[in-house]
């Protein structure tokens, strides 16, 4: 290595130094620290932290409330993610057309996603009110108490997430659609394929990388849902909306069972990792099956 190269290497390291220090202090070290916390019984209020080994993880094994919240979160994701993706793709197909005013529509549809989560949640409490809420008013005074009905509360949160999540998913699909090779579409058109057949035979499979990206990021976001639960339902009624992000918050900051919460968040991380890998595998499989890879 010459002197100039060595000098340049040193300069390069100086450029990445501040971000690296930040990464170590606020991301890498906390992961290890988190594991250390999970192996103890940390009492925030008393300032004691005896080592307990894997006891916190063993507690998790028989904790029906925790696994129940994981199950509810899976149901919530199952309701909101596939429908949200289909909706976003449908809207993207519309606004990706070369027509006047499409940029305005794209901007407009994005607004809920850049709005305050708390303000949006307060707004949707009203929308779901039984007496004068917007939905019941539009349905003609049906008086359904969406957020206090154990059957309806979770679907109500999922429906709201469609409204909030449309913009970002749509924009990603628009980018995917605009990046498709036009030659393939033209060839399909010359073969006499109609628009519906062209969509299912060409567009949809070619969008596989976009589907995968939207699927993985939306699933992770669904599993981390917190603000609407905190603001709208606090996990009620009868725990029907006790999603895992909120459940961990309560364990840590309401029961002050910090070590147990750290163990729970580790399990959530593993679940998200496994889900992402499974989704990537499945999508790869379908990609190869359709011959679009």
């Amino acid at each position, binding site marked *: 290595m010459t002197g100039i190269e060595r000098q340049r290497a040193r300069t390069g390291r100086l*450029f*990445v130094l501040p971000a690296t220090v930040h990464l170590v202090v606020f991301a890498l070290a*906390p992961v290890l620290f988190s594991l250390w916390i999970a192996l103890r019984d940390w009492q925030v209020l008393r300032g004691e932290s005896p080592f307990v080994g894997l006891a916190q993880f063993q507690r998790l094994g028989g904790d029906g409330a925790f696994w129940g919240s994981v199950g509810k979160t899976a149901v919530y994701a199952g309701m909101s993610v596939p429908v949200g993706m289909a909706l976003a793709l449908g*809207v993207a197909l519309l606004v990706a057309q070369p027509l006047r005013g499409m940029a305005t*529509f794209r901007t407009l549809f*994005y607004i809920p996603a850049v709005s305050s*989560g708390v303000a949006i949640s307060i707004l949707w409490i009203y929308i779901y009110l039984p007496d004068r809420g*917007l939905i019941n008013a539009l349905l003609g005074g049906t008086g359904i108490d969406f957020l206090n009905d154990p059957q309806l509360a979770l679907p109500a949160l999922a429906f709201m997430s469609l409204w909030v999540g449309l913009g970002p998913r749509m924009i990603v699909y628009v980018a995917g659609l605009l990046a498709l090779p036009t030659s393939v579409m033209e060839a399909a058109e010359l073969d006499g394929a109609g628009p519906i057949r062209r969509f299912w035979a060409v567009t949809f499979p070619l969008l596989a990388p976009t589907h995968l990206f939207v699927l993985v990021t939306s699933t992770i976001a669904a599993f981390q849902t917190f603000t609407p639960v905190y603001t709208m339902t606090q996990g009620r009624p009868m725990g029907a909306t006790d999603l895992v992000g909120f459940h961990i918050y309560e364990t840590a900051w309401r029961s002050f069972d910090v070590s147990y919460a750290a163990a729970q968040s580790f399990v959530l991380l593993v679940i998200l990792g496994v889900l992402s890998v499974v989704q990537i595998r499945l999508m790869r499989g379908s990609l190869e099956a359709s011959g679009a890879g």
Partner: protein
Amino acid sequence: MRVRVGLTYAALLALAAFLVAPFVWMVLVSLHPSRAPIPELGGLVPAQPAWGNYRTVLLESNVPVDRFFWNSVIVSVAAVAGQILVCGMAGYGFARYRFWGREWLFGAFLASLMFAGTVTQIPVFLMLRSWGWLDTFAALIVPSLSSAFNVFLLRQFFRQIPAELEDAARMDGAGDWRLFWRVMLPMARPAVTTCAAFTFFAVWTDFLWPLIATQSQRMRTLEVGLSVFQSGYGPTNWPLQMTASVVTLVPLLLVFLLLQKGFIRGVTLGGLKE
């Protein structure tokens, strides 16, 4: 063809109504007299708009909404400025310099995107508590001074800038820092705008972290403050709750409209990352 275009517009307008109607309702209810019951759909437009609600919320409520607002401004602006500098430097360093361990280190940044937020919340809280940082601006700002996503985004952008430009500036005798600060960072302006937009919205609308990292009313950000306001006024005062919600949303909307191009381009970049 014309039918199809007509149907497209009809569908988009219906969807726009679905997305915008709740906001319109929010503004209209905020103009009803304080403590008034929720209006029926027919009587949504108030006979006399109660603009005084905005005065009440901003200046006269028992919750210091103006203080929340300035806290949010300080925290968001500091985070944006910090990230432009810190992530800009790192993005440039990764894109343009060779050094031992570079790929490995960059991989660590990417890996951290996976677990951000899930497992770090509790340890970072305990760490800042032991440093005596809780309930200070430091607790709200310092964890947001860098983000792996923005390092990634800026690196991608710096890699696309042709090397000739840099060589020319070097010939003119510009040093490494001058080159970065005066030439490269200004050239990366589209990507920097995107980063600024992402950071601003992420920090302004962050709820969970300021909720646990602050305790006193004077350190709350607007997002947490709105939640405090909501529980303070309960479900009984919809007009004031809606007024506070509008106050929270307006700065976000203004910044979004200002930076929308950068914002949507960034979402697209994120979508295309491998």
